[in-house]
Structures are given as C-alpha cells and as structure tokens.
C-alpha cells in the first residue's frame, strides 16, 4: 500500500496499520506470566504495609496508642494522625475533604486510622491488631434516607474546600449532607405536563456496586530526601502526581509516578486512592513501603454510587415526548471522591437523547457514613438510562405505539443540541438503535415468558481534552511512543502503536509503547471517560506526524524529489524507483550512524477553556438490545441474547472494540441482575468478599452476544475515531429492564434478583385479580 504523503488523507484511507486486527502489543508477555504488575515489584529495602481500619461507621477518635504495635518484632514504623501535624493532610480532587488517615473522627467503617510498616507482611498484619484505639460512637447516617432526614447527623461539619481537578466551575456550598448539587431547567415544564396525553411517573432505586478489577489497589511509595517515587496501579498518574505534590509540599518534578500494567481499572483506580497513605508511611519509615489492599479493603476504597430517583415523563397522544422532570440523589459515601462529577454526568444523562419541549433535572450528591463512591465505567449514564428508557417504553405501551417508532420520532438527530452551549450531537442514534433491534430479531415472534428491549442514551465523554505525546524514531527505524495512557487491559498500547504506525508507514511491530513514568512520559490528563483513543491518540497522531515531516524533508533531499512525488511505503519512502528506508533516512539526517527523530504532539481545548459546560469532547453512544426469559415460578431472569452497537467513528482495531463491548455487556448483566453491595443500618458492608458479592462468570454469558461496529467517521479523534467501551454498560441494564417489562414484569429496583422479580410477579398477579373482582 502506498500513499501520497502530502495529499490530505481521504476518509477511511489507510496505509495498513489502522482499521484492522493486529496482535496485542502486550499479549505474549501477559500469556507467559512475565507482565509486571505493581505487586510484582520489590524495590530494595521495601517494607510491607498494613492498614488499621475503623470498625465503626461514625465515631470520635479519642485516643490512638501505637506503642504495643511498635514493640513487635519486625515492625519499623506505625503512622497515626499525630504524624501529619506538619502537613495540610487533606486531599480529594473534587472536594479536599479527606485526611490521609482519620483525624479525630472516623466517618465510615473501613476508614484508615493508622498504618504499619514492617519487614514482613505477617508482622505488619499482626501489628495492626495491636494498635489500641478508643472510639466514642456518633449517630450514623448510612443510607440516603438517613442522611437526608431532618436533623440527620452531619458526616462533615467543616466547610468544603474545592479540590484541584474537579472541573465543575464554582462549587456550591454544602447543604446539610448534600456536598454538591447539579441541576437545570429548560422550557415551560408545567405547560408541557398540562399538554400531555400520557404522564409516566416512577420512583427508582439503583444499588451500590463494586468495580471489581481483578487486581486490588496496590501502591509502593518511596519517600526520599530529594524526591517521592511511586509505583502504583493508577489510571491517572499525572493527577496522582499533582495531589501528592500538593499534599507533601513538593514541586511536580520531584514526584515520580511509575505505572506498571494494571489488572483492570474500570474507574476504580481513577484519581488518588491509596497513594497518600503509602507516601505518608514511607516518609515516616524512611524506606519504600508497599500497600496491597485485600478485596474487602478495595471495596471500602471505592465503589459505584447507589441512587434514588424520581422521574416523570410527559408525552402527547401521537407519541411526541413533551417533558421530563427528574430528581435524583447519589450516595457518595463519607468522602466526595469523584461524586460531584458523577452527579453532573448523571444529571446530563437524565433527559435521555430526546428532543424535549421542557425538562427539569435536580441531582444531589450526598455524604453518608459508608465507603466512598467514585468512578465506575459509564457512571451517571448507567444510573439513569434504565430509568429514562423504561419510561419511554411505558409511554409507548400506554399509547399502543411501537417502541422503535417512538424513538425514531423523538431521538435527537446529528447536529441537534444536546444541552445548551455544549457540543451538538455527533452520532446517528436512530440508525444505531435500529441496528441493535435488528440484531436481536426485533420482529420475530416471542415464546411465552420472554421479552425484548432496546435502549439508547448518551454519555458525556472525553473529560478535559489535554494530552501530549512524544514519538521517537531511532537510527534503526524503530519507533517508541511515549504517551501517558494507562494500559488497564483495554488495549491502549496496541491502539497507540497502530496510530503511530499508520502515520509513519512503520510496521506495527516496530512501534513500542511502554507504561507511564511521569518523569519521562509527557503529560496526559487521565485514562478514563473513553478518552484515550480520541484525545491521547490524537496527540500521538500529531507527534508521529512531526516525525514524518522530518522524514519527508530528508527524503526529499536524499531522493532528489519534491515532497508531492514521494510515496509512503512500509518502513520506507519511495520516489519512483528509488527507495529510502526509515533507517537510512534517520542516519542521513544526522550524517552519522546514530541520531533520533523526535516529534511532539499536543491536544488542548480549541477556542474555549475545555470546561465541562462547553464539552463534551464527544458524545459516547450507549445503545444495546436484549432478549430475556423470566421463570415466573422462581423469578429467575436469564439473558438469552444481547446486541451492542459501537458507534466509534472509525475503529482503529475492530477486534478490540468488540472486546470492549463484550466486557461491558457482562458487567452490565452483573449490574442488572445480581451485583449489589449491602450495608447494615449502622453502616457495615455485609458482602465484602467474592463469596458474598458475585460477579459474572462464564455461565452468565448470553447464548448470543453480538457487537455491531458503526463507522461514520464523525469522531474528533485520529482518523475520525471516537471512544467506546463504556456506553454499553449503561445500555445493557436498560435493555434488560425493558425486555423484562416486555415479558410482563416492569421493575423499578435494580438488581433484578429472583426474589425481587418473584415478589413483583406476585404483586402484579394480585393486582390483576383485584381488577377482576
């Protein structure tokens, strides 16, 4: 394949590296057990950490006596709040509300109170049990209801301080336990409801869910005189660096964050988690310290927000959607973490992707005495889509309209406004939902006890569009990409290699992408919000283009031809019958058997500040269909068939796109059918092991699972790409809920456990009998 290197690339054109399956860059090293994760690293002199966690959900801490622990063999240091007196020890990227370890007060069961560093893990684990703490119990607000009740105990009494990376403009004052509010009202809502032929009203409940990445949070910190070095399983190393630098009073370049492979993330390793506590104990011990959470510890480190929601949808007799009013409350636990952002995203997802005459949304982020909630794949959208879409289906049912037709009539079209001042719709939602319906055989007859559903939604994606990347071509023509994207399993290293290879005409297997080391890797805001291919990928594309420009300049001289007559070939540039390999070009440029071409790429907000209001970078499409079967004797729901639609603009690697959708589908099945963190009224997490908290297994896979990739070239990323991999997690539970309603069992509580579904069936049966009598 050859291409005119100076001509603008026609859409869909490829020199061969993008748009196809390539072997995963990290596949062999992972399949032979050689891939290095944070827990596999042991720097010299490393100590093992163990965290003492609060046994109560809300209490004053009267005394902490570490001396019995300090006397034990092998114990080097014990850190308590008293060791933080010289610091401003509060962190949190949204609200700076969280101390490194509890100071005077614990706010959830599981909150770190002290940390031990010892020569062995066993010594550290034993020492933790010897620390003596005296608690004075306070009233507990362990649920949304308790935290919002009049006279509820306040989880935080101090005024909130904004964090450094919330990106939400001016934060409102805390109101009782409500730490953040997001809301908007557009159009005349009262009139819209007055004009309605049908109004659907409901109250809904969504559970707390654990992300369950297979690798728990793991961090090694080495606090030295002149620098702080961290190895951490984190998704956002540059934001971790920023928070650690601020906490410990260091310039950014004295904090080095190294990110090995992540054993999954899904949002659970976004922002700052165990890093502050690890740095603090290393500072005291004077040696590197590793902290590796157990699952029960990671489950109180982060989770998905549980939510209560009231929604009303109004429609005209012809099925035109008129108005929607939504009130929702998200339980962010004892510390805000990413709660404010989750709340704003949930608020934006609440109307659904429809053309409304009027809409009102009120979203509150609420502190409770439970473990902090943060990001989990497709946050906000997963919370709201099943609710909004079940109301659209209910409107259709009451008006005897086809459920696809009502969507065709009301869905936003490309270019239409999604929210005032934000990015207009950049996707063909009608086409997408029709594809999902077709893939689950929408028009075929259904057996008794079965139902089908589709769902469509949008997720504000891309986060803050700031990424930089460097591409280096060495004297042998080999290419190294330095980009801050974290490889968490999604295939980022493979995709970045494909993007650079495509631009340069280099063989994909000559492009090396390694993990982030903030000392050498240029800045990238974060790995999340489906932004890596789109935003960081664009920085890589631009960096590679800078290298290509240098190659072309040299080739033009060397081959004595103007650039427009040059053609890109694999690993070389050609003019007529003359060929110069990348190796020859780099060496020719330096007149030496060495040298290196270095290109830099930058992405930043164009014509704005990149604020949330102006965004998003793109709208991630959340479309899926499902067919389910319900056993009315037992309430057991089985998902027989799913169809996802990956509307990705351009699939850099279609196989990896499909894998993202399949993974999100199974997480969606778990979220919809059985995953739920359960707390006692006094705030104890009851199911904090994998024995009690089940995630999907091989046997939960639907018999049929399809993924349709849509490539309309309408993304802002490289080659027209836009991100994927999250939207399906929002779309699948919604499709399942709609399919179950189609089978005769409408539900307003997730997860759809057999008991809940069975009870609902009994209620419906009794209702029918009462109607008859």
């Amino acid at each position, binding site marked *: 394949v050859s291409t005119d290197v100076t001509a603008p690339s026609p859409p869909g054109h490829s020199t061969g590296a993008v748009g196809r399956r390539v072997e995963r860059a990290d596949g062999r090293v992972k399949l032979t057990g050689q891939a290095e994760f944070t827990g596999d690293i042991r720097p010299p002199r490393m100590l093992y950490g163990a965290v003492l966690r609060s046994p109560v959900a809300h209490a004053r801490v009267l005394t902490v006596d570490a001396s019995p622990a300090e006397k034990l063999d092998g114990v080097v240091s014990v850190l308590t709040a008293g060791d933080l007196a010289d610091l401003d020890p509060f962190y949190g990227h949204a609200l700076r509300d969280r101390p490194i370890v509890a100071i005077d007060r614990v706010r959830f069961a599981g909150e770190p109170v002290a940390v031990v560093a010892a020569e062995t893990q066993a010594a550290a684990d034993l020492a933790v049990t010897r620390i003596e703490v005296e608690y004075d119990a306070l009233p507990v607000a362990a649920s949304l209801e308790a935290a919002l009740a009049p006279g509820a105990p306040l989880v935080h009494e101090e005024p909130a301080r904004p964090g450094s990376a919330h990106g939400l403009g001016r934060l409102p004052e805390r109101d009782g336990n409500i730490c953040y509010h997001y809301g908007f009202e557009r159009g005349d809502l009262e009139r819209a409801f007055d004009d309605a032929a049908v109004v659907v009203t409901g109250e809904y409940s969504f559970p707390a869910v654990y992300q369950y990445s297979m690798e728990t949070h793991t961090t090694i910190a080495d606090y030295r005189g002149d620098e702080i070095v961290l190895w951490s399983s984190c998704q956002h190393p540059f934001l971790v660096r920023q928070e650690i630098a601020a906490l410990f009073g260091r310039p950014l370049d004295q904090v080095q964050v190294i990110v090995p492979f992540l054993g999954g993330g899904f949002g659970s390793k976004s922002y700052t988690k165990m890093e502050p506590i690890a740095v603090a104990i290393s500072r005291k011990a004077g040696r590197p310290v590793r902290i590796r959470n157990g699952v029960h510890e990671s489950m109180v480190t982060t989770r998905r927000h549980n939510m209560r929601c009231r929604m009303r949808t109004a429609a005209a007799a012809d099925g035109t959607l008129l108005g929607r009013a939504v009130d929702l409350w998200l339980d962010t636990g004892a510390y805000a973490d990413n709660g404010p952002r989750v709340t704003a995203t949930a608020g934006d997802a609440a109307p659904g992707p429809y053309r409304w005459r009027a809409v009102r949304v009120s979203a509150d982020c609420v502190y409770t005495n439970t473990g902090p909630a943060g990001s989990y794949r497709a946050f906000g959208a997963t919370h709201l889509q099943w609710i909004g879409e079940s109301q659209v289906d209910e409107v259709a049912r009451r008006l005897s309209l086809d459920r696809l037709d009502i969507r065709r009539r009301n869905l936003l079209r490309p270019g239409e406004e999604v929210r005032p001042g934000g990015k207009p719709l950049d996707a063909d939602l009608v086409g997408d939902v029709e594809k999902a319906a077709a893939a689950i055989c929408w028009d075929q007859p259904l057996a008794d006890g079965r139902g089908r559903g589709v769902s469509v939604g949008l997720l504000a994606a891309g986060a803050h569009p700031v990424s930089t990347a460097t591409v280096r071509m060495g004297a042998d023509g080999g290419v190294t990409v330095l980009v801050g994207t974290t490889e968490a399993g999604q295939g980022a290293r493979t995709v970045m290699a494909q993007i650079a290879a495509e631009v340069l005409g280099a063989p994909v297997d000559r492009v090396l992408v390694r993990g982030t080391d903030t000392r050498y890797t240029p800045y990238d805001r974060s790995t999340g919000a489906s932004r890596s291919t789109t935003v960081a990928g664009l920085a890589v594309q631009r960096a590679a283009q800078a290298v290509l420009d240098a190659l072309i300049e040299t080739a033009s001289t060397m081959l004595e031809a103007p650039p427009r007559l040059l053609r890109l070939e694999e690993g070389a540039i050609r003019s007529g019958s003359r060929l110069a390999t990348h190796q020859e070009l780099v060496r020719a440029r330096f007149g030496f058997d060495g040298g290196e071409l270095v290109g830099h790429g930058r992405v930043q907000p164009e014509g704005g500040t990149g604020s949330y209001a102006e965004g998003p970078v793109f709208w991630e499409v959340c479309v899926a269909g499902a067919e389910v079967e319900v056993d009315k004797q037992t309430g057991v729901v089985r998902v027989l068939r799913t169809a996802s639609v990956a509307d990705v603009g351009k699939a850099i690697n279609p196989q990896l796109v499909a894998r993202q959708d399949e993974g999100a589908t199974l997480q969606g099945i778990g979220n919809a059918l059985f995953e739920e963190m359960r707390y006692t009224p006094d705030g104890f997490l009851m199911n904090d092991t*994998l024995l009690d908290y089940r995630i999907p297994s*091989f046997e939960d896979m639907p018999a049929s699972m399809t993924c349709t990739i849509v490539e309309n070239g309408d993304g802002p990323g490289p080659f027209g790409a836009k991100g994927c991999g999250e939207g399906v997690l929002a779309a699948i539970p919604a499709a399942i809920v709609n399919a179950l309603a189609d089978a005769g069992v409408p539900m307003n509580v997730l997860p759809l456990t057999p008991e809940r579904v069975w009870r609902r069936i009994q209620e419906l049966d009794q209702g029918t009998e009462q109607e008859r009598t």
Partner: protein
Amino acid sequence: VTERISALVNGRPFEGRVAAHELLIDFLRDELALTSVKQSCEVEACGTCTVLVDGAPVSSCCFLACDIDGRHVETIEGLAGTPFHQSAVEAFLRHAAVQCGFCSAGMILTAKVLADRGVDPSPDQVSQAMSGNLCRCTGYRSILDAITTVLRESREGAGGSREGAPA
C-alpha cells in the same frame, strides 16, 4: 513452626523449610519469584491464583505451602514453551482473549486440566468447567473461543500421536 518439604516446582526440585502456616501463593511469589501467580479474591472463588498440584487445579491462596511436600507444582512459567502452552498463546492472541492479563495464567492452567482430562470442547462443557475462573475484562466469549480451539487442537494432537504409535 516450620516444616521441611521436598517438592518439584516446575520440574525443579525444592528442598527446604517453610512456615507451617505459609500459603502456597506467598511461597511461590515471594520465595521462588514465580510472580505469574496472581492474588485477587483470597477466598478460593476467582481462579486467578490457580496452579497445578500433581496436575490438579488448586487455588494457591487457600492451600498451605507445606502440603506440596512430595508433589509437583506447576505454574505458567513451567508450562511456557510446551506445545499446549504455545497452542494456548496463539489461540488467546488470535481471539484477543487477553486484556488486563491478571486472570490469564489461571485460565490457561485450568484449560490445561480440561485438555488432560479430555473434556469435550463444546461451549457448554467448557463454560461449566471454567466457571471457577473469573475475568472482569473480556466478557468471556473470546476466552471460551480460545479454549475450545486449544482443546480441539489438543485432541487432534493426541489423536494424531495415538494413530502414529505402534499398536
């Protein structure tokens, strides 16, 4: 309290003392640097820390190191380079059945047991047999496809050698 053990680990003899309460996963990772053995659930529910003991799958997070006395332990490091492992690597790569990679070694070791036991390479049989190995990334379909491929190849390989062997 320590116990003297004598065992084979990936074909190599190990002679020495281990703490009586030491878990096999810690022994393999910390003493022998076999870091392919990953820790996740710690309650024998996820399959991530699977190793083979005398050819049977064992969750090394809930198995005492001293109980390998007189037995043979295999991890993915020991399987590397064998025809089964090569076949598994190629199948997993072809189907992109590895994402974060944390569960991969356990998946391949469990699949090895299915191959050794001659489990029928049908999707239902394999799903049932693999249901103790969890993966949060892939959605399982690609792993199922890879393992059924490997089991089929393994059968054909075994069948081929039987046919070729003298009666």
